């Protein structure tokens, strides 16, 4: 997707101002997508706004009544809500750092020619194809399980005892699982970006006596910056709503240690069946999402267009 944007080496080919008689005629082209998304946004949104001002529990519909801002004050005054926002941020940022950092290193690695490179690359990107539920189940039951899990069996075999991942390091465990899923994605995009780099240019720099680190810092990194921006953007979109991994492994706990915003709203909607509360939470999430979107537009998107 993106390395295409990421690497735009022909700015001069772009006519300065695109404007012709066809301006008016673009509407029917954009309209279907925009209308579809608008409907998708607005119809449930309108219902959500309606619900958010009501005491409306699906299990107790008789008690349905208008309570004004009651749901909003209840959520905003809930310490759990603010914790969940903090955890969302920690989760997004740390997985971004891990996948982009490791992704860059791995991209350089897989850019080299070595025997069996093709197969190794296929194996390395495989986690991206695995559905989140399944990868969470694998990690939970077969790798991180404190009694039967492989990691515990190995560490215990070495006499180190076993780590109870989901009790003692729950957030780290989630971060590891999500990173494992998304590292291949970062790797794929960064790899294509690196491959587009002029190898002769690197060779020339190397001939001039550039050290590998300098080479990386001054030749590769600037070249990759836009690919990194794209990865960051797409991953952020997905990481803000991480759900299956938490649902399968920790259920948001222990305590609130792994409750992110999506999971917090899930608790409202499907455990409490508090439609009013969940709607209010959803609306707050909508607002936050738009703040993030504006932020992304300012910082990342500026990088994307020439």
């Amino acid at each position, binding site marked *: 997707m993106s390395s295409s944007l990421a690497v735009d080496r022909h700015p001069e080919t772009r006519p300065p101002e695109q404007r012709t008689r066809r301006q008016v005629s673009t509407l029917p082209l954009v309209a279907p997508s925009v209308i579809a998304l608008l409907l998708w946004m607005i119809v449930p949104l309108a219902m959500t706004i309606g619900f958010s001002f009501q005491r409306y529990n699906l299990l107790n519909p008789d*008690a349905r009544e208008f309570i004004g801002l009651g749901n909003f004050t209840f959520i905003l005054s809930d310490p759990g809500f603010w914790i969940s926002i903090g955890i969302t941020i920690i989760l997004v940022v740390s997985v971004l750092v891990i996948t982009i950092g490791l992704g860059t290193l791995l991209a350089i690695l897989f850019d080299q020619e070595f025997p069996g490179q093709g197969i190794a690359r296929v194996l390395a990107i495989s986690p991206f194809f695995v559905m989140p539920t399944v990868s969470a189940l694998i990690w939970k039951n077969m790798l991180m*399980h404190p009694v039967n899990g492989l990691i515990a069996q190995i560490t215990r075999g070495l006499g180190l005892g076993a780590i109870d991942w989901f009790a003692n390091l729950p957030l780290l465990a989630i971060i590891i699982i999500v990173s494992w899923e998304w590292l291949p994605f970062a790797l794929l995009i960064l790899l294509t970006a690196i491959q587009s780099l002029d190898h002769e240019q690197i060779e020339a720099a190397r001939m001039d006596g550039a050290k590998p680190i300098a080479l990386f810092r001054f030749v590769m990194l600037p070249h990759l910056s836009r690919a990194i921006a794209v990865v960051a953007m797409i991953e952020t979109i997905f990481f803000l709503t991480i759900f299956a991994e938490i649902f399968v492994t920790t259920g948001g706990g222990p*305590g609130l240690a792994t409750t992110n915003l999506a999971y917090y709203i899930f608790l409202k909607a499907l*455990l*409490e069946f508090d439609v009013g509360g969940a709607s209010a939470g959803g609306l707050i999430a909508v607002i936050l999402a738009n703040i993030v979107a504006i932020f992304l537009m300012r910082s990342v998107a500026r990088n994307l267009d020439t």
Partner: protein
Amino acid sequence: MRIFRSAKIIIVFIIGIFLVQSLHACMPSSQAAGKTRLTIATVNNGDMIIMQGLSSQFEEANPDIELRWVVLEENVLRQRTTTDVASQGGQFDVLTIGSYETPIWARRDWLRPLNLPASYDVNDLLKPVREGLSSDGQLYAVPFYAESSMLYYRKDLFANAGITVPEQPTYSQVKEWASKIHNPQNGVYGICLRGKPGWGENMAFLTTLVNTFGGQWFDMNWNPTLNTPAWEAAIGYYVDLMQNYGPPGASSNGFNENLALFSTGKCGMWVDATVAAGLISNPKESNVYDKVGFARAPIENYPNGSNWLWAWALAIPKTSKSPEAAERFIAWATSKEYIQLVANQNGWVAVPPGTRTSTYENPNYQKAAPFASIVLRSIQSADITQPAAQPTPYKGVQYVDIPEFQAIGASVGQTIAAALTGNTSVEQALQQSQTSTERFMRHTGYIR
């Protein structure tokens, strides 16, 4: 004008897909013309899977009915069925629900009252179970299996340590025994208890513990009482016991996980559902089938509410399109004949327990299930109308029969799991639970 053509093409395509799809969707039903299709939502535990296997016999006997199974994990099942029933989705004809939901949903008029034929012998169903599944004296669901809670222990380990277990042990004794048989070097942990957060997981066990320590969830005015000395004593006991003599990862062990641990010989004791008795006594599923001892659930200060009462039951939602066929199915699946069928197929030890007096009177069952009498006495002694030492505004031993309890139980369960892992202290956890529950009860209008 040409530009509009592409938009038109899109619209035609979409309509085309719609047509093809809806045609496709109609095809199977036209194939099965004349057959009533029942969609059954059920939970993925052993007994239900046996039922699914045997259901072809029902279809043979009732050629006009076709069964379609939706088998889900317990939490997912509960979310799916509740969403559907509460919003009148009409996706299911038979629901697998618990004794917690049945009266609540019946009061909402979401379930069809059941009027079963005389041959079904409703009075053969155990009384506490039957009453738990009724609302205002009317039966709304029939029990597939029912359970109380009890203590399991390893006879071999206890014999080595020179311990004899009375039929009614106490929690003080349990702690002493756990310290004696705890031997992690050999992969045996003193005791396994539920730690996985959830109102139906750790809170089910912990509520019985709190009951017998003299506590309860709410006073008569619906004020939560989670920071009382009884709760502190009970939860303090639990956390101390598990941290010293429990298996690693206890905070993510629910019923299934503990069952796996116990049947692979990793637990010295286990307090949990009576339904496990049949499973850990089954040589096909357990490594310790011949070494299990049985006793009543331990008590502490008060005998009330020390063992729970639960039933997985089959009910028919009001939105079902074929209620008659559904009623035929649930009558079959919970009948005496069905129990006999499982006995013939899988042996008496595997029959669904806790539902019918006739099962417990059957000499074959008594012979195959040495635990039968303890289970029966446990179920009969469980009284959902008087779960605690003091009077309560609610019914239910290990739950509170209000819709909001799922959320409260889940959140308190999480906080106590955090205390179990040592992330917070017991006092802190209970104070936090008290505050959040009080907030919640105010928000939902119980406390004005």
